[in-house]
């Protein structure tokens, strides 16, 4: 390939494919052919760029030009204006939400400026279905180095000294986990498992890594297997991720053909192979003992630790379970050294963390930042601020196990310990931004509905406790709260936290406890005044039309899905409270603030 040949990288992640990035690829190839440009440019389908809210994304290299929301019809202009004419296609350049300027060089995009991509280093850079691309980016060199230059203990020491900790949420030091598994019954059959059952609603980094760079996970599993003395690996992956499964299978097949998996890897006596096991939609299977039972084909119920999987895991043998993002860091650490990694981050949390930024924020997507970055930087600099100019209210981190972070803690440097100290947690990295239109009681109820549904039912505190908490929250949002409810929620929450069997139950009350801590007034409003200031709790809302402000434009009547608004043109309209379903459409439609919530 000549060096001056341009590459047109098109995102082939799930999000962009659903908005027809396949059609873009097809049209680009056609346009290149019709214009006789195949010598000068090549179309490459790559993994996720992370900027999912702006998809489909096309990036032209080496020009570093980043096109957003591209449609198949734009292919003609990209080829004619950019590839042939050497000019930007202005209308599909990204508009920075802060400066309102179109960005010409991808490096100037605020979304990427503060990011430091380690786990996502190859996502959006290489063709995930072509092992040659991965090899060209130093792929499998780390495995070779380990097998031919380092002893098993040396590999473990590198990971230990790097300070890498579990990215699935637990934050347990990875090197230590490897060391314990290595020492456990050494010489016997052992297993390494990759936990790709990303069950946390609102997190999608593991999916993107597997879709965009599955080889780095395979390579890391092989490195771990060598260090710990395992010969078999299992990837436990959600059945809901068909594209990730497809790409992982291709990557495994290619790795086998190249001899990176199988017998006598790199001419050594190290043998290692991986098989895929499917999850089937159970959040609790993110807990390692439950996951192992599921891999064995049973109900995914956790068991008491000890024994830890490192002593007795899959088929009773020593087993190490690592999360996808944790593994994706490993080859980079081996190649660049532990100091390179531990220089990034804070005292106790080293390296970077990928967050899935979603909710009421301008720039939605995956962001990878050094540990110790503040929430303010993530929300305002990278995230481009709150959607629609609304007011920031809180960020929910750690999913159903986490809590909310308010304005007061926006400048906290994010790491495992700091998040715990303010009542939230790292979790797997879901980050949901909420604005003033979101009701915190309703959000807490959403999470409890999820956890009580996902509770496996094995232990009473979680099975019954989450159910009771959910019932109380449900009553509160329906205007049937009682004065003692808040105290009961706190007491129940503390009880469940201290007595549930596994991580699911022990953390399930967190969203409730943390919203009570920071937004107690909202709970009190719901209970004492039967009032929800956001209007999200439908049973507590009553929309009325202010006759002083209504000019009779009929906008509200036209959008009402149940036709409960009566009134003639240029006359005051009235809402029939009997028929109203409290959807809020009239409130959103009125340009004159004439529709009022109580």
């Amino acid at each position, binding site marked *: 390939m000549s060096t001056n040949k341009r590459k047109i990288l098109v995102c082939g992640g799930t999000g962009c494919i*659903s908005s027809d990035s396949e059609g873009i690829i097809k049209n680009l190839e056609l346009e290149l052919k019709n214009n006789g440009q195949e010598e000068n440019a090549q179309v490459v389908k790559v993994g996720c760029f992370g900027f999912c809210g702006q998809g489909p994304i096309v990036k032209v290299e080496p020009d570093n030009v980043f096109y957003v929301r591209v449609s198949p019809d734009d292919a003609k202009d990209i080829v004619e204006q950019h590839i042939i004419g050497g000019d930007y296609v202005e209308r599909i350049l990204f508009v920075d939400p802060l400066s309102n300027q179109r960005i010409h060089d991808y490096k100037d995009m605020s979304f990427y400026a503060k990011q430091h991509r380690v786990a996502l280093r190859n996502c959006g850079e290489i063709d995930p279905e072509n092992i040659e691309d991965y090899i060209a980016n130093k792929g499998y060199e780390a495995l070779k180095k380990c097998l031919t230059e380092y002893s098993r203990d040396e590999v473990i020491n590198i990971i230990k000294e790097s300070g890498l900790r579990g990215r699935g949420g637990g934050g347990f030091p990875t090197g230590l986990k490897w060391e314990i598994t290595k020492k456990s019954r050494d010489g016997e059959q052992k297993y390494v498992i990759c936990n790709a059952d990303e069950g946390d609603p609102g997190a999608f980094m593991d999916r993107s890594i597997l879709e965009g760079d599955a080889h780095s996970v395979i390579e890391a599993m092989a490195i771990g297997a060598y260090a710990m003395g395992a010969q078999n690996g299992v990837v436990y992956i959600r059945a809901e991720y068909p594209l990730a499964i497809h790409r992982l299978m291709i990557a495994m097949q290619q790795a086998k053909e190249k001899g990176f998996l199988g017998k006598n890897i790199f001419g050594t006596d190290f043998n290692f192979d991986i098989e895929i096991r499917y999850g089937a*939609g159970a959040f609790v299977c993110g807990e390692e003992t439950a996951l192992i039972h599921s891999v064995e084909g049973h109900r995914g119920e956790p068991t008491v630790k000890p024994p830890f999987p490192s002593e007795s895991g899959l088929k009773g043998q020593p087993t190490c379970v690592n999360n996808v993002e944790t593994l994706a860091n490993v080859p980079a650490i081996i190649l660049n050294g532990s100091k390179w990694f531990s220089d990034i981050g804070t005292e106790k949390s080293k390296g970077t963390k990928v967050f899935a930024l979603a909710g009421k924020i301008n720039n939605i997507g995956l962001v990878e930042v050094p540990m110790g970055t503040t929430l303010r930087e993530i929300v305002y600099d990278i995230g481009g601020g709150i959607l629609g100019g609304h007011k920031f209210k809180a960020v929910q981190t750690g999913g159903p196990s986490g809590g909310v972070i308010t304005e007061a803690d926006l400048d906290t440097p994010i790491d495992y310990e700091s998040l715990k100290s303010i009542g939230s947690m790292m979790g797997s990295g879901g980050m*949901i931004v909420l604005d003033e239109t979101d009701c915190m009681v309703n959000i807490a109820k959403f999470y409890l509905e999820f956890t009580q549904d996902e509770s496996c039912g094995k232990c009473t505190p979680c099975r019954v406790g989450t159910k009771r908490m959910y019932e109380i929250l449900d009553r509160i949002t329906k205007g049937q709260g009682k004065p003692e409810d808040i105290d009961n929620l706190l007491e129940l929450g503390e009880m469940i936290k201290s007595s549930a069997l596994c991580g699911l139950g022990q953390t399930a009350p967190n969203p409730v406890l943390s919203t009570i801590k920071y937004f107690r007034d909202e709970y009190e409003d719901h209970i004492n005044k039967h009032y929800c200031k956001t209007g999200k709790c439908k049973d507590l809302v009553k929309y009325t039309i202010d006759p002083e402000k209504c000019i009779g434009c009929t906008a509200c009547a036209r959008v009402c899905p149940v036709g409960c608004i009566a009134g003639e043109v240029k006359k005051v309209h009235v809402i029939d409270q009997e028929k109203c379903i409290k959807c809020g459409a009239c409130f959103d439609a009125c340009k004159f603030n004439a529709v009022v919530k109580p």
Partner: protein
Amino acid sequence: MEKSNIHEQTTSVKDLPQDLFDELRKYIDGLEDRKGSLINILHKAQSLFGFLPREVQLFIARELGIPGSQVFGVVSFYSYFTTKPTGKYTISLCMGTACFVKGADKVKFKLEEKLGVKFGETTPDGLFTLRDVRCVGACGLAPVVLVNEKVYGNVTENDVDRILSDYQE
């Protein structure tokens, strides 16, 4: 409380196509670790039959030499498996947090209203099944609706008619 049993909780369907059973048997026979692969086998069975009626669960149990109750225990544990027949098109609404805060509940209401069935049910003509799914990991496109495998992003209640019209027969 009445003790529920497998007969009350599973659908029985007689006269399922024999060739599908043959294909499932072939798949099972090709596995190294048959008992440990129960979940993979159930996935395969559900992709063949569309759902897991009692006859299919018992067939798998006999093939593996395990009690039917054990198979049913696994089927009922995981939300991905269904024991009810589904419509030609399954409309899955993502209920992840990002979709929730972006108003997935309005889409849910609209879908139920348009199709006249609740979530978890199938329309009488057998065309659509409504179900809510766990986060599908396309949070950048919230709210997300899937029709079988096709993903629709940034769906508002106003898009529901347009989406359904793609599949009206």
